[in-house]
């Protein structure tokens, strides 16, 4: 019964996934039927404000974005721990609340550390 209910609940998900892909495929296919296709060297060059493209776009990038992703990863995993706690808080009572206060305190110390180390600053 439980397995069946799970199937029933996620059936729309599976079907939406398939139908979404099919929808995009049909739209792209329809456009392929009607659109012109006259390719020239200029058309296929990368857009760079009508100039000849200079070099490759995939160059060394600002380290700042990497720092943000690292901090994000830590927070995202910790946020994940809060979901089961939030659902069960009423039955956990005061102890659950104190535990989460400690957890968030550690989280805030981590944020303060990243802040102090200027991981969140935008370095020019």
């Amino acid at each position, binding site marked *: 019964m439980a397995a069946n209910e799970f199937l029933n609940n996620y059936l729309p998900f599976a079907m939406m996934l398939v139908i979404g892909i099919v929808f995009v495929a049909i739209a792209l296919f329809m456009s392929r039927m009607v659109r012109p296709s006259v390719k020239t060297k200029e058309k296929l060059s*990368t857009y760079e404000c009508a100039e000849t493209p200079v070099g490759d776009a995939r160059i060394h990038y600002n380290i700042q974005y990497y720092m*943000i*992703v690292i901090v994000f990863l830590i927070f995202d995993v910790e946020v994940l721990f809060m*979901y089961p706690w939030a659902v069960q808080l*009423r039955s956990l009572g005061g102890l659950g609340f104190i535990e*989460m206060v400690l957890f968030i305190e550690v989280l805030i110390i981590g944020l303060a550390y990243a802040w102090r180390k200027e991981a969140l600053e*935008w370095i020019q």
Partner: protein
Amino acid sequence: MITNPNAYDLIVAILNAIGVYNIILGFFQEQGMEYLLRIVIVLVEIAVVLVFVLLTVMFLSWFERKMFAVVQSRYGPMVTGPRGLFQPIADGIKLLGKEDIIPATADRWIFTIAPYIVFVSVLLVYIPLPFGESLILSDLRVGLLYIIAISAITPISILLAGWASNNKYSLMGAIRAVAQDISYTIPLAITAIAVVVFVGSLSTVDIVNAQQGYWFWIIPKWFIFLQPLGFILLLIACIAEMGRIPFDFQESEQELVAGFFTEYSGMKFAMFFLAEYAHMFAVSGIIVTIFLGGWTGPAIPIIPIQITSLIYFMIKTYAVIFFACWLRDTVPRVRIDQLLHLGWKIMIPLALLNLLVAAFVVTAGVI
């Protein structure tokens, strides 16, 4: 645990009321394919949602342009159809006939697959979105977590699109978009958790049901009145998530041409366009579900609750969309360092504070 009724149950109930359900069921049982009936019914539901999404996108793109024009004392689209209402159809036909250019230096495979991922991931957000009383595709028990998880796929497709284009504007726009999306996912998730603490369930239908009723017979029991700070945080985070002015770094026209879809043309561009507006509606619907009482509203006699609730949901969602468009029309863009400063140093601490206060109130037994 009782599962809330969803659209499937509603369709079965309607078929039963007409008296044809047993006939159809008997037909499918004769073939020995009882489960096929469920698949057919779900197929109908999904078709309805898909058509609804497409119509919404068409209307929204017209609405936003028209509103932008009115704010700037222009006319906006007005040639095609009454007040230019058919402009989106004209756009669609134009895009259908446009040449599809894949730059020679681009990564062809990833370039082609990115529009699929962005559109499908936005479409999947609609599954646990309650449009009205029992008007929901599937009431997942992890509904809110599911929504946040699926929303996290969109930045991946943006990054794929920007990377595959091998265009400097695209890559810059994509990386900015991802940095912004992930920075604002955290306050969004934490404010959502603060509501889950009150409800004790991740199901979107349970969240809406918890907001039914009134205080003092006048004030509706919406969570916006319990957590005004949470509502403001969620609204800002959602507007950033939508990538709209004042947070539209992914496609700030003056700097990055069109951001991550600079190189896309024709139908592939249309897919990004569709996804953007569909995402906008979905996110507004989520704000309404979490904080503005979802589909709840005063019941009207005679008219079935499914219809009135759908109307209430639409009114509220369009109010949020109106607010987002209004922001776009009036507010200048912030700088990216200001954006990250706001996200990490103001919104996350405030969101944690909001969560702790909510948890304290629940533990103390006030609510």
